């Protein structure tokens, strides 16, 4: 009750660097840390316009980075901002990915899911984890953070594109399947074990469903980042519920065994009015 609530009031910061990742994707860096962990999100406010949730792409204790696709009204406006312009930030909110030291993690990233997955890779590598990053996108020009992943020690990078313009032609989940099948060890007792300790996934919900099914089939621990329409970010408005569970508080990162109990997972989401829409 006496924990500070200032992170629930947006405060504006000046953009300290703008990076054009691709034609449609931009990253902003701010010279501030919000103490965010991989998988958590923040609310990003364009003063006088709107405020939207975004995964944190990096928070190293000194600076914070966000990466976004200019696809909606607000992200298109954000993409026109320059170094020195003001953006409001509040958070971080929600759950984050969790790992144990020296685990082998498979990180499955679809589209802009590459940004939080990169953040997870950076932090997990500090704990001595070995990482297989599987990055997917529609085509080569939509792939994100490849150089960043490639520059991380202890990280193996695989790439998939829908059109085959780079890496495997097909889905990143195909590569996860190959990895899980090839890394299954048959023990002398006759049972099997995995060299992959955990799978983390962030991307479109159809991809998450495929990862969820695959991990359940292979009995591998898996954490998924589930996205829903957010307003407050801290459990009051109730807009981001999946089966009544607020994704801003109990998500966005959910353990697969819990996500699989949600009848709404992979089926529909709700808009700002609470109306259902099929995924």
């Amino acid at each position, binding site marked *: 009750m006496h924990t500070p609530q200032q992170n629930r009031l947006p405060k504006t910061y000046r953009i300290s660097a703008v990076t054009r990742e691709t034609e449609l994707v931009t990253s902003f860096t701010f010279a501030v840390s919000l103490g965010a962990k991989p998988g958590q999100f923040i609310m990003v406010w364009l003063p006088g316009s709107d405020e939207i949730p975004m995964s944190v792409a990096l928070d190293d204790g000194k600076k914070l980075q966000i990466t976004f696709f200019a696809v909606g009204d607000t992200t298109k406006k954000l993409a026109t901002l320059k170094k020195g312009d003001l953006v409001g930030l509040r958070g971080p909110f929600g759950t984050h990915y969790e790992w144990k030291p020296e685990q082998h993690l498979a990180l499955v990233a679809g589209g802009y899911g590459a940004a939080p997955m990169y953040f997870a890779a950076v932090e997990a590598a500090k704990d001595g984890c070995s990482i297989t990053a599987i990055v997917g996108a529609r085509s080569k020009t939509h792939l994100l953070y490849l150089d960043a992943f490639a520059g991380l020690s202890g990280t193996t990078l695989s790439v998939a594109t829908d059109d085959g313009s780079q890496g495997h032609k097909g889905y990143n989940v195909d590569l996860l399947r190959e990895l899980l099948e090839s890394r299954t060890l048959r023990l002398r007792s006759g049972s099997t074990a995995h060299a992959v300790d955990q799978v983390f996934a962030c991307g479109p919900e159809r991809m998450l469903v495929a990862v969820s099914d695959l991990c359940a089939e292979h009995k591998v621990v898996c954490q998924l980042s589930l996205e829903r329409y957010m307003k407050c970010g801290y459990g*009051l408005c109730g807009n981001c519920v999946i089966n009544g569970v607020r994704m801003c508080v109990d998500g966005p990162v959910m353990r697969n065994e819990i996500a699989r109990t949600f009848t709404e997972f992979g089926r529909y989401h709700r808009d700002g009015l609470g109306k259902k829409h099929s995924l």
Partner: protein
Amino acid sequence: MNLSQTVRGVTFQNPAVLASGIWGITAASWRRVAESGAGGVTTKSLWLTEHKGHPNPTIISTDHYTLNAVGVPDAGIEKAREEIGDYNKQKPVPLIANIIANTVENYGKTAEEIAKLKPDFLEVNISCPNVEDEFGKPFACSVRDASAVTKAVKAVSGKIPVFIKLSPNVDDIGSIASACAEAGADGFTVINTVGPGMAIDLRSRLPILANKVGGMSGPAIKPLAVRCIADVYRATEGKFPIIGTGGVMTGEDAIEFLLAGATLIGIGTAIGYRGAEVFRLVCEEMTAWCKTEGVKKISELTGGMHRALGIRT
């Protein structure tokens, strides 16, 4: 310790009910809140037809207050039918359906449709302070308007008790309550959010809420709620049940509301401060206080302050 309260024939296992506007958009959400220990749940305000809310930012908080200008978004009656219908199939705690409209006539139409879904109570939101640009001053700010809405709702709600949700942003909340009581109201929800208030971002020099202003809730408004509950209780001679809402964080806050005249306690913003567990915590804290003070049944606390003051009720 018996925390149950029977209000207008409906028994609540404990008095801590989910207040309208917080979390309660779906049947699954109402059940989650019940699992967290709430004695009842209130829907977010239901419109007859789709109503868009305000853009973000819509809800912001500090340690002391929360400001909201969500703008009462709702998908309309079809969604209400689906969600309340679903909830009725497996209903852990009583459901209070909160309704809203833009005219007296539409309050009647909305109440008529929602009453068919058989909620335990109808709660009539005539007091939202963050849609004034769209609809003007709330109906709760005028004796005549508040009374007219009450009559329109009562005419179509059958046996379902009707609670009028009052605004603190008036000169004399007691006279509004008296007028609604005369018009047939069965009880009151006291209070809706306060203000509206405003918060400004220093660097951009702009109001933070997209709507510029928003209703204030949270710990800071509790004394105002206590005074309003006491005013309504006194004005209606303690004959009407009151759902006391506004800034309740703890069991002792809830006890204070009962002493002012409340029978049930609405909890909303506190979820943001103490988590979903707040319902269970408030009940545990009420129980602990009652044990220490030798109170056997919380129903004996309602209106206690008025009796202590020696005011006949």
